[in-house]
């Protein structure tokens, strides 16, 4: 028996979410008294996983997996799960992990709970707490299958060190027949994504127009964060749809969420609720967002943002 994590990497580096999965998986594997195994794809350096409790890493290599494909990755993970009699497989909440999880679940006849935010309440039967109603509520979900998949929400479990010496096994990926081909990948390099960011700075209609977005971008850059926006801002074409956060856009689960000129409509709040600390800047003291925020400034965005960015730069250089 075993517990398995799918450790994602990008540009040769293991992602922070993978260390979260490892730390989370370590607790479960220790409780079950079984080994904790990580599966990686096209990743050379994997030793760092040992710091967070991984005992064995299975490294997949080969031309069929040089780019992510849900089908191929799911089949390789399924293979490892079968070989190691995995009871629990832990995935992140990245777009790719959410893409492959349903396939993995059918291949292994496994149960699947997405958006899980805490360690299991119980292991027999596996009972997990997950968000539902787009972050407006939680449910406790019980999975009584031989094998179960847990999709852990980003930034919901703290990274913990549990150093282990690791065994590394290299494997060639099989290749599955499929007519589905990735023709092109358009990725903005060097930009922090909303999914991975510790800090997200978001602008609403209060910013008045796309020409003012350098204010949001400068502030985000200063904090090493990602930029986001409210739905109308993306619908009007001020910003790309990929930045739209909220109930019908992307969820935000950062450590710090700064919302500027965003009123705080129920659909917006639903998507950003799981951010740990929320700061609101709005010139209307009655804006509903103040009720959902930790810190607030009642003031004009065009005066407050430049000052805040300047002061933060000074703070960071100290």
């Amino acid at each position, binding site marked *: 028996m075993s517990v398995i994590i799918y450790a994602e990497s990008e540009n040769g580096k293991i992602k922070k979410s993978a260390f979260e999965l490892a730390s989370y998986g370590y607790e479960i594997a220790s409780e079950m008294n079984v080994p904790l195994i990580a599966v990686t794809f096209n990743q050379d350096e994997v030793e760092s996983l040992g710091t967070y409790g991984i005992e064995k890493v299975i490294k997949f290599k080969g031309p069929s997996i040089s780019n992510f494909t849900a089908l191929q990755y799911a089949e390789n993970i399924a293979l490892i799960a079968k070989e190691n009699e995995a009871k629990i497989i832990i995935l992140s909440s990245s777009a790719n992990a959410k893409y492959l999880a349903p396939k993995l679940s059918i*291949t292994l006849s496994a149960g699947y709970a997405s958006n899980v935010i805490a360690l299991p309440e119980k292991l027999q039967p596996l009972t997990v*707490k997950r968000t539902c109603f787009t972050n407006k509520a939680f449910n406790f979900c019980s999975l009584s299958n031989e094998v179960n998949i847990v999709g852990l929400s980003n930034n919901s479990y703290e990274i913990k060190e549990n150093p282990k010496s690791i065994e590394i096994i290299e494997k060639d990926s099989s290749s599955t027949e*499929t007519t589905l081909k990735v023709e092109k990948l358009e990725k903005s390099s060097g930009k922090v994504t909303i999914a991975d960011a510790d*800090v997200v700075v978001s602008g609403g209609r209060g910013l008045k127009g796309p020409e003012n977005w350098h204010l949001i971008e400068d502030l985000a850059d200063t904090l090493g964060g990602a930029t986001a926006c409210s739905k109308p801002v993306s619908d009007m074409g001020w910003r790309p*749809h990929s930045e739209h956060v909220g109930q019908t856009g992307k969820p935000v689960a950062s450590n710090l969420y700064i919302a500027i000129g965003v009123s705080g409509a129920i659909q917006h709040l639903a998507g950003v609720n799981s951010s740990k600390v929320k700061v609101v800047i709005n010139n209307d003291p009655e804006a509903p967002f103040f009720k959902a925020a930790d810190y607030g400034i009642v003031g004009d965005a065009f005066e407050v943002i430049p000052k805040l960015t300047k002061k933060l730069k000074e703070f960071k250089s100290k």
Partner: protein
Amino acid sequence: MKILVCISNVPDTTSKINFVDENTLFDTNGVQFIINPNDEFGLTRAIWMKQQQSAEVTVVTVGDNSCESTLRKCLAIGADNAIRIDLKPTDGFQVAKQLARICQETIYDIIIAGRESIDYNGAMVPGMLAALLDYNFVTNCVALDVEGENAQASREIDGGIEIISCQLPLIIGAQKGLVEEKDLIIPNMRGIMQARQKPLKVIEPTEDEIKSSILKFEKPIPKGEVKLVPADDIDQLIDLLHNEANVI
């Protein structure tokens, strides 16, 4: 070309979420139900294919008879016919299984579902359906072009876009971007009248299989008071974020 659009009947986005029966059941009291927003983007894309490529559009939902007004709305928007599988769903796998059955009885070239529902919120059903049927699958789909047996679809990934080509049959998980907000079709009087005449078939579920069950629900703990910082005292905000909140 036959298109199936999977419709999830969900509480309106402005709904307050409450639970009854010792937090085991969603409280539908005073709640309006709508087409799941992601499904509505998908339905609109399907109607375009009906208009431009003379596709036939069927909508399907797994749900009890309270879902019928949502299905009628889909018909008023332009779907040709509707199917309701008479089962109140509790689990994504269960829904995928029921949908797979009707896709085995009638072959659809394209199956459109939403990226995720806004109530169960699992992002499970379309991927599971694709795996059960062994069909190609593209989720977070923001563009779709179909010509003959071939499709090109774009998937939004973290920080970019992936352009995928594949053969039909194809299942997509739709979201905004596939069509724009302004493209959504608001049913007119004629559409609503026609919808009453269009076929809505109710079928019995096949043997029911689940892989998860919800034991109970919980609401978030209400937030404490916001700490307001004067606009001319940015230093205080930075101090709070650094020393109190520990986020910078």
